[in-house]
């Protein structure tokens, strides 16, 4: 009973704090425009944005699923995921952050719209984002709601409703500012738990080397690469190296930062915290869990972290750790819900109805966040059986569709809308065909889909007319400095 009271109190306080932050963020709103709502007004500082980036990217999967994969299949394979994540951050910082920021856009599809001005592309990209992020959100909600059920001791369905109402409220009401502030607190909680559990793991062994050797002796396959084929390592690495660069809930943080350099600094802090989390949880915590359990196969490998908490930590730490997992889920889900709402109301409607007034669009974004929140909650009541598979595939699909249109769109002047559309469609279609029609190792589809997308991007671009300098004007300015309202060219009278 002791474990229920403290964690429940912490959780209730935490949920109230999230609601309070949503209301506070709404009061901070100045212009009330869509841009301010989706970017937080662009005034977020280094520490808040850095922890928020970490919290939004480190999901419930990072806190539980990754440790489950490390326990069951060895830490190398999951490190391929995370090595890819780290490289993805380098690509984002070196090749995308500054330009995205300088383009003065609010979302990834808006960048595509400004750069290529293709109606079909502006419809395809938001739809792909809505489908892939939808799968991502449902997967995260399921993890969070399972923890909520365990933590609060209430039925799963009620856990879905209570938690769902809180994050839908603060996301829809406070926008990016609320999401960023809650993510900051959630990030602090998460890294605190990671450090404390890391120290406990080290104290359990006689130092990191002895702990590692003991776990290795118990289960040699934990440290070798025999469980997964080479192509699965390569696929996992490439999926995350490319997905990080196009994931809207990470990229939108660059728009939220005070300035371009703060955006890059925040990404650096976010990556640093993420690396610490990976090393501590995947090697130290899982290693000590291995020693505790004797390396036996767990009925559900995803519970490896829970086994560690139950066996090696005092009940109050266990409770706070539950809350941290909970925070990991909420931070990611709220950020993704915001991206989902933006993709629908701001990007898709903005394309289908170009004359749709800005004021109405601004009102439609929170409404669509609520609608998507409810839809994903309904899916979370009865999540699909192949959810984890679909979620991983969703990230591969997103990267196969968006990576080359974005990267080449930023750097290659010759890249045109026909090439971008061909790259997006060929990447998406080839990925889906490989996923559904072939029995390939997990995540390896992208090893083939991405080069296909590149070939189509280059081939179709070279076969079609090049863009004019006038069409590239905004991009050219963005490579120099921030695009300003006075840079918009007046429309010539007919």
């Amino acid at each position: 009973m002791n474990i229920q009271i403290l964690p429940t109190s912490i959780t209730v306080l935490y949920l109230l704090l999230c609601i309070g932050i949503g209301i506070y963020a709404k009061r901070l709103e100045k212009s009330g425009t869509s841009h301010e709502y989706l970017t937080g007004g662009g005034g977020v500082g280094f520490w808040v944005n850095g922890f928020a980036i970490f919290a939004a990217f480190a999901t419930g999967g990072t806190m539980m699923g990754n440790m489950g994969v490390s326990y069951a299949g060895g830490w190398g394979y999951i490190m391929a995921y995370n090595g890819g994540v780290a490289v993805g951050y380098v690509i984002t910082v070196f090749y995308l952050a500054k330009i995205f920021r300088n383009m003065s856009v609010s979302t990834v599809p808006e960048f595509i719209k400004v750069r290529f001005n293709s109606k079909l592309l502006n419809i395809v990209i938001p739809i792909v984002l809505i489908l892939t992020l939808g799968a991502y959100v449902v997967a995260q909600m399921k993890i969070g709601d399972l923890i909520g059920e365990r933590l609060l001791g209430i039925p799963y369905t009620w856990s879905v409703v209570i938690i769902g109402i809180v994050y839908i409220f603060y996301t829809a009401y406070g926008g990016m500012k609320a999401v960023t502030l809650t993510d900051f607190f959630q990030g602090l909680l998460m890294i605190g738990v990671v450090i404390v559990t890391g120290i406990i793991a080290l104290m359990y062994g006689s130092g990191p080397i002895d702990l590692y050797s003991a776990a290795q002796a118990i289960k040699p396959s934990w440290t070798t690469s025999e469980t997964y084929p080479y192509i699965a390592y390569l696929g996992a690495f490439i999926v995350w190296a490319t997905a990080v660069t196009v994931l809207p809930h990470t990229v939108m943080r660059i728009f939220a930062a005070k300035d371009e350099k703060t955006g890059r600094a925040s990404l650096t802090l976010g990556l640093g915290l993420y690396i610490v989390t990976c090393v501590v949880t995947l090697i130290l915590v899982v290693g000590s869990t291995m020693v505790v359990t004797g390396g036996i196969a767990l009925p559900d490998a995803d519970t490896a972290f829970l086994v560690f908490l139950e066996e090696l930590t005092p009940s109050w730490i266990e409770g706070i750790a539950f809350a941290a997992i909970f925070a990991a889920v909420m931070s990611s889900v709220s950020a993704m819900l915001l991206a989902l709402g933006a993709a629908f109301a701001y990007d898709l409607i903005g394309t289908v109805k170009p004359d749709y007034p800005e004021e109405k669009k601004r009102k439609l974004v929170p409404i669509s966040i609520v609608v998507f929140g409810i839809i994903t909650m309904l899916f979370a009541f009865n999540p699909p059986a192949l959810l984890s598979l679909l979620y991983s595939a969703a990230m591969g699909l997103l990267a196969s569709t968006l990576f080359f249109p974005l990267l080449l769109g930023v750097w290659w002047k010759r890249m045109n809308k026909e090439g971008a559309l061909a790259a997006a469609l060929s990447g998406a279609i080839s990925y889906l065909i490989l996923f559904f029609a072939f029995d390939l190792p997990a995540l390896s589809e992208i090893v083939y889909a991405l080069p296909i997308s590149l070939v189509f991007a280059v081939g179709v671009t070279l076969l079609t007319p090049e863009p004019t300098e006038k069409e590239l004007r905004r991009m050219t300015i963005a490579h120099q400095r921030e695009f300003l309202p006075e840079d918009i060219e007046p429309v010539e009278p007919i």
Partner: protein
Amino acid sequence: MKTKKATGFYPLARHRLVWSIVIIVAILVTMNPYSYQLEFKGTALINWMLLGIMALSFVIILYDLLKVEVKDPAAVNETSKTKEFKREVPFTQIEKEGEMK
């Protein structure tokens, strides 16, 4: 009036190009079948090298962050921002000159 056509790539800072090559080489060395098969004291070499990739990535973006950027003074001047585009010298050349300094 003849419309100018766009060709080539936008210029990239030299240190970013160098670091990009370094990390590509590191990825090729890490993510190959030999690293996957070889073991060092019972641990697959690829595992340690992936840790190295993560550390290298962090060091690279930290270096990039701390590196002092050379800015084009005209771009800093608020009043010159719109006039900037009437220059005879293309932006790409201005940025290249900035990088060289």
